[in-house]
């Protein structure tokens, strides 16, 4: 027992004492009499390093002049953490959120309105493409400023196009054509057990291979999910989108597709089937080229705008990470000094470039495209200028609505429900959610 105890003390106590006594590596030293602006951001890894470099530069220049010190913090689940901290009276001064959360947080008094501050600090909003500011507005007020924006386009594999007898310089121009291409780009093999297997898939909207945009499809058929009052999924566009997905799966063989989707790696990183040329067309953002150059350097591919239902329309999905100032921030003015610095074209475009995103400015700097890691960045950038460009539906109940739409999408994919019934059921559920929200809001106002 005594040797055991000694061992215990030595093995556990010693490192503990060393750790407590010597402590951690030096934290960044904050110079005295600087106002600390706490900045919470979701970016980790390489993206965080890029931002940290800019923050450091701010602290050495403008920060030193105006006695401001920005402290960059990587925070997981930043939206929820910010909310909890705000409720607890200890919010950060700047936070980096996703755009789809802005309407909800704005409606729940979690964000500071920025109109006055933007005017006071003379930030030139006209320099930005209008859609990137539109995304940050709710109920006519500005709550969020764009940080690193993106659009989503169609990546397609040149080699597989050629093999299927398709012209690699002529990507699909309508959604119907995309289905047709998908069929021609899908190849099967029959296994020893006599069952057919997909070895190469043309296109899929399966969430595992898509990312976060399961709700998006009606938009390419001209539908918009929210008009400011009511949600609209049970519409001709909604049904057309459901039918489009259903038809493709019926044509390609749904059991085979499910099998392929269930056994093939997820979209993130190296397991992406587009990289291993098992998926011919992919709906993805500009950062995809980073994965390609990292994991599949020799891939012969191109990027085109995602097709709409009719060739005369150019629906394009635009979304951006945003900067907000939480309600209850202790140093909103100092935060604004930092944001003004961030929103200078050269600074922000440097960040966007390092993150593999597009530029939020009307006229990107001449070398922005030339030095960008994505060779097709101009395609993405031009999509944001399309008159039919759209962002996330700006509904305060988006979080819950999106969960219902995911359910709808999944039941169409898995064929557990007739697509049109699924659309109608989703509309009902979302109506209930919206009604409930509005009823509670009415009670709150005291009606």
């Amino acid at each position, binding site marked *: 027992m005594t040797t055991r105890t000694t061992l215990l003390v030595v093995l556990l106590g010693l490192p503990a004492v060393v750790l407590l006594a010597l402590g951690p590596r030096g934290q960044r030293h904050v110079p005295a009499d600087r106002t600390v602006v706490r900045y919470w951001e979701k970016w980790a890894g390489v993206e965080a390093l890029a931002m940290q470099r800019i923050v450091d530069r701010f602290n050495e220049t403008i920060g030193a002049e105006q006695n401001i010190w920005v402290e960059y913090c990587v925070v997981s689940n930043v939206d*929820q953490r910010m*909310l*909890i901290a*705000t*409720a607890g009276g200890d919010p950060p001064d700047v936070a980096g959120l996703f755009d789809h959360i802005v309407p*909800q947080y704005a409606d*729940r*008094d*979690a964000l500071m309105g920025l109109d006055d501050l933007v005017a006071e600090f003379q930030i030139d909003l006209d320099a930005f493409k209008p859609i990137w500011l539109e995304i940050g507005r709710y109920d006519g007020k500005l709550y969020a400023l764009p940080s690193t924006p993106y659009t989503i386009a169609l990546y397609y594999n040149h080699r597989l196009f050629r093999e299927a007898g398709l012209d690699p310089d002529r990507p699909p121009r309508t959604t119907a054509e995309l289905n047709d291409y998908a069929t021609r780009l899908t190849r099967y093999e029959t296994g020893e*057990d006599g069952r057919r297997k997909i070895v190469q898939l043309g296109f899929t909207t399966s*969430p*595992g291979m898509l990312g976060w945009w399961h709700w998006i499809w009606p938009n390419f058929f001209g539908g918009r999910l929210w008009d400011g009052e009511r949600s609209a999924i049970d519409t001709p566009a909604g049904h057309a989108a459901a039918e489009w997905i259903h038809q493709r799966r019926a044509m390609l063989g749904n059991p085979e597709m*499910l*099998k392929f*989707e*269930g*056994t093939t790696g*997820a979209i993130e990183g190296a397991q992406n089937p587009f990289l291993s040329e098992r998926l011919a067309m992919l709906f993805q953002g500009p950062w995809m080229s980073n994965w390609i150059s990292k994991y599949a350097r020799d891939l012969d591919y191109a990027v085109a705008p995602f097709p709409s239902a009719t060739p005369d329309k150019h629906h394009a999905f635009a979304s951006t990470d945003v900067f907000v100032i939480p*309600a209850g921030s202790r140093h909103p003015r100092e935060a604004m000094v930092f944001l003004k610095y961030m929103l200078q074209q050269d600074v922000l475009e440097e960040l966007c470039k390092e993150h593999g995103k597009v530029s939020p400015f009307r006229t990107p700097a001449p070398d922005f495209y030339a030095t960008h890691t994505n060779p097709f960045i101009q395609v993405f950038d031009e999509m944001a200028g399309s008159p039919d460009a759209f962002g996330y539906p700006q509904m305060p*109940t988006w*979080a*819950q609505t999106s*969960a219902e739409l*995911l*359910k709808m999408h*999944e*039941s169409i994919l*898995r064929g*557990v429900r007739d697509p049109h019934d699924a659309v109608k059921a989703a509309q009902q*559920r979302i109506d*209930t959610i919206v009604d*409930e929200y509005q009823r*509670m809001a009415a*009670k*709150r106002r005291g009606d």
Partner: protein
Amino acid sequence: MTQRSATVQGLLWTAPWWLGFLLFLAIPMGFSLYISFCDYPLLQRPVFVGADNYRELARDPVFYKVVGNTFIYAALAIPAGTVVAVLLAVLLNRKARGQAIFRACIFVPTIVPLVAVGVVWMWMLSPEAGLVNQAIRPVGQLVLPAAQALDNATDGAQWSQPILGVAQDLADGPAWLDRPGWAMLALVLISLWLIGSPVVIYLAGLQDIPTTLYEAAQLDGASRVRRFWHVTLPGLSPVILFNVIVGIIVTWQIFALPYVMWRSRSGPEDATYFYTMYLFDNAFKYLKMGYASAMAWVQLLIILALTALVFWASRRTVHYRGA
């Protein structure tokens, strides 16, 4: 000692507990009961709305879905966990060299951070290269001909289809994380890997069974199996009851693992969307704190009811020594 000084002394000694109870349980519970009757989005003041939250809960299809899922998970994980934990405990209770190391092997998984558990098992269960499927496929290929023969013999009868389907899945290696049924089983499987704490408690329970009972049984010529059924299990029954109740509480609070493992958070066709996850989503994603509080109270009632049910059902089968 007078009555009064005894009371004072008793209250003084138990003060840590009842002070903590008042501060960190009673007050929060009272408050949560109140806001369960409010609309409360966390940053705006709570507004009283009567029983609206409970009424909405009764109409909410997602609520029924998560209750169902949680019930299914509990109904699978608790019995499976009990059987495996008791057997492991018996195995680890034998006198053997290096038993400490064997015990540690079973116990280590419980100290692995859940984020890592999720990632490791996503690899273990990966459909093509995962170790689990590499082990399962040969079994499935053995079973598949039998299932096909059955299907042929019954002319593809309705009831033989699911059997054939499962056999086919096994032969290919199931897509664990992408099919509702398999996803649930995957979680049960992982729960069996994280079974260290109950095993330790069963081990202790085994050491509490007097050796005289075993000796007497041996004298009567009882076999190993009979000794297990007639001495070990009755002796262990109070501990089993304890672990089952803890199991109910724990399974009803399953949260972190599915949260880490499925990006959609709710799994294929919502199959791994559990009660506490929906509660958290309501509280911090949908900002419906009042609704979440109502859910929490319903959860407490369900757990209490299940516990009472288990006590009632076990009144004949649990043996207390000396009682």
